[in-house]
């Protein structure tokens, strides 16, 4: 419990966002992130930056908004944290003097004179703040996490220190939290059938690596298909998305290389960059000026002290940032990468399948050439309803990775039914199964996204991110509201994900909805009504922008409206 409190606030799937401080250790980095975030005081202030001077690079309006935190709300949020911290100290005091039973790990008596293990802020936070609203996370569900799911009911009699299952199941909870963008997480239909067939034919376990007797025809088929889907020469599939990043970046970069990483990159990218031993510099989230400055400095000054040129400069970015709902400014990144001759590593974990007219990720969304991205990485966990990750690119790159990547050499290869699920769902998206189901799902997803975002915006919530991103963060800010929002929504039979520190900056707690193609309009309306009701109850409609900038947004809205019917 103690060792990984960083990831706790997220429903198990751990999108912990960290800045890549070079030296900080395993526990240090989260804190660092938080400080970092506070200093820089959030992202480019004022709102919708509808493409700046680089508009020529875009083939469509790029509307992304991060409304500023209202001052009063920020002050009250800090006050709330202050009060909770005071009570945290009180409880720690009681625990220390054995007035209250200590239920968390603490130093043993014989360790008392060593460096304290459980006294840093993170442990304090876990013990005294996270624990109080822990019932919102790690909730067991007992059905396929499709558009609706069944949730196991739990109760606690000791304020979230332990949970008991009551034995009842909350049926048909609307699922607004799974990354099930295209709705392929299902237990019926062609994907499930073909996966079942594959199980009958191959079994589930492979018990060998790709280099040994774990290289099935299914894997080869999958890789060919992925390459075709992405429009790249060659591709390679791995059994785990996280390991795809964290184990492959070290084989691509090393000492003497420079990694430029977005400050909000996923933990797997951060870990990969650290493991590679390359020098890491962090640029501001999606901020091209910041990236350009780093690139220019890197080229002008070279490596520190020796001033030799860097061996390689690798830019690490994600397609959709899963905590902000923002989309990478890919055309600008590509322009910069070409100008300064750097390499680009694009993690499409959330965007593959979810963006673009043909569902082929941000590359498709912006209509850029896949060959301009050197390393296309993505996962099968989200849109394809399976598991694992891939890397696509030039044949030389993939051949190199096949022999050098740790997750190819040392890890058991992907389970055949999983591979089959990916193949079937990908073919469905590509329309190669002879139906238009895939296209319909894509269209449904983009309609749902637009509708959901527009309604939330109209209700007066502060929502972050790009208008086309199916990840919709809704700002909650105050610590008590994180707990209250999750509980109230579940009472209304809607399952959501709420996120707080350390996954977000301390005052920017949020609820994160993931829109899916499997959601029907009815479900979305039910969810939206519940959100509105809870929003009124908890006073969450912070946005001051709904009325204010109607003119400014008129054309943007008309664009949305034309989309709707």
């Amino acid at each position, binding site marked *: 419990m103690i060792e990984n409190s960083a990831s706790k606030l997220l429903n198990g799937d751990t999108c912990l966002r960290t800045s890549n401080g070079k030296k900080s250790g395993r526990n240090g980095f989260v804190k660092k992130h938080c400080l970092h975030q506070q200093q820089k005081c959030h992202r480019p202030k004022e709102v919708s930056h509808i493409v700046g001077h680089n508009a020529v690079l875009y083939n469509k309006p790029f509307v992304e908004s991060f409304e500023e935190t209202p001052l009063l709300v920020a002050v*009250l949020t800090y006050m709330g944290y202050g*009060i909770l911290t005071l009570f945290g100290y009180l409880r720690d005091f009681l625990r220390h003097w054995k007035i209250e039973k200590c239920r968390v790990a603490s130093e043993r008596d014989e360790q008392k004179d060593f460096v304290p293990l459980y006294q840093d802020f993170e442990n304090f936070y876990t013990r005294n703040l996270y624990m109080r609203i822990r019932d919102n996370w790690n909730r067991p569900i007992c059905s396929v996490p499709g558009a609706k799911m069944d949730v196991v009911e739990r109760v606690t009699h000791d304020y979230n220190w332990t949970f008991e299952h009551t034995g009842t199941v909350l049926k048909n909870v609307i699922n607004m939290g799974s990354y099930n963008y295209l709705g392929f997480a299902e237990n019926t239909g062609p994907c499930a059938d073909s996966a079942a067939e594959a199980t009958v034919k191959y079994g589930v376990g492979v018990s060998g690596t790709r280099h040994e007797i774990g290289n099935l025809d299914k894997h080869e088929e999958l890789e060919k298909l992925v390459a075709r889907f992405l429009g790249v020469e060659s591709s390679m599939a791995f059994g785990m998305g996280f390991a795809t990043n964290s184990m492959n970046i070290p084989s691509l970069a090393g000492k003497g290389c420079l990694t430029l990483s977005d400050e909000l990159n996923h933990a797997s990218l951060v870990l990969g960059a650290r493991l590679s031993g390359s020098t890491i510099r962090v640029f501001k989230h999606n901020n091209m000026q910041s990236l350009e400055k780093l690139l220019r400095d890197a080229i002008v000054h070279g490596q520190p002290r020796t001033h030799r040129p860097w061996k390689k400069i690798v830019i690490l970015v994600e397609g959709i940032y899963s905590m902000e709902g923002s989309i990478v400014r890919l055309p600008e990144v590509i322009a910069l990468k070409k100008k300064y001759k750097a390499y680009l590593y694009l993690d499409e974990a959330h965007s593959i399948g979810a963006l673009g007219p043909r569902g082929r990720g941000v590359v498709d969304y912006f209509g850029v050439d896949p060959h301009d991205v050197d390393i296309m990485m993505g996962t099968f966990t989200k849109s394809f309803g399976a598991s694992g990750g891939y890397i696509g690119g030039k044949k030389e790159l993939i051949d190199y990775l096949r022999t050098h990547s740790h997750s190819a050499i040392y890890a058991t290869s992907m389970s055949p039914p999983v591979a089959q699920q990916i193949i079937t769902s990908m073919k469905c998206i590509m329309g190669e199964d002879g139906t238009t189901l895939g296209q319909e799902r894509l269209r449904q997803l983009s309609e749902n996204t637009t509708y959901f975002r527009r309604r939330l915006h109209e209700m007066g919530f502060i929502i972050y991110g790009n208008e086309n991103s199916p990840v919709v963060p809704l700002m909650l800010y*105050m610590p*008590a509201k994180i*707990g209250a929002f999750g509980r109230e929504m579940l009472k209304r039979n809607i399952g959501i994900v709420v996120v707080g520190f350390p996954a977000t900056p301390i005052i920017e707690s949020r609820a994160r909805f993931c829109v899916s193609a499997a959601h029907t309009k009815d479900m979305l309306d039910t969810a939206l009504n519940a959100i509105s009701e809870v929003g009124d109850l908890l*006073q969450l409609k912070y946005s001051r922008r709904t009325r204010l900038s109607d003119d400014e947004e008129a054309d943007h809205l008309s664009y949305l409206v034309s989309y709707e019917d």
Partner: protein
Amino acid sequence: MDVKNLCDYLGWLYYQYLLITGIYVLEPWEKSIFNTVLFTMVAMVVYTSYVFVPIHVRLALEFFSGLFRSHLSISAN
């Protein structure tokens, strides 16, 4: 009917207070400590203002009226 509305409203206000101060997530005994401390502080502020403000106001009034009167007497001369 009105009483019920008022009760609802007060309940809502209390809920907002819980959420904004963050004590929504605390255990009942901690809530009561917080409420007690806050209540005591507010009560003390109110009480001190009740006790001392009138005195200060009177003193101030006396001071100014004294000034005024002496001013008057000066101008009478």
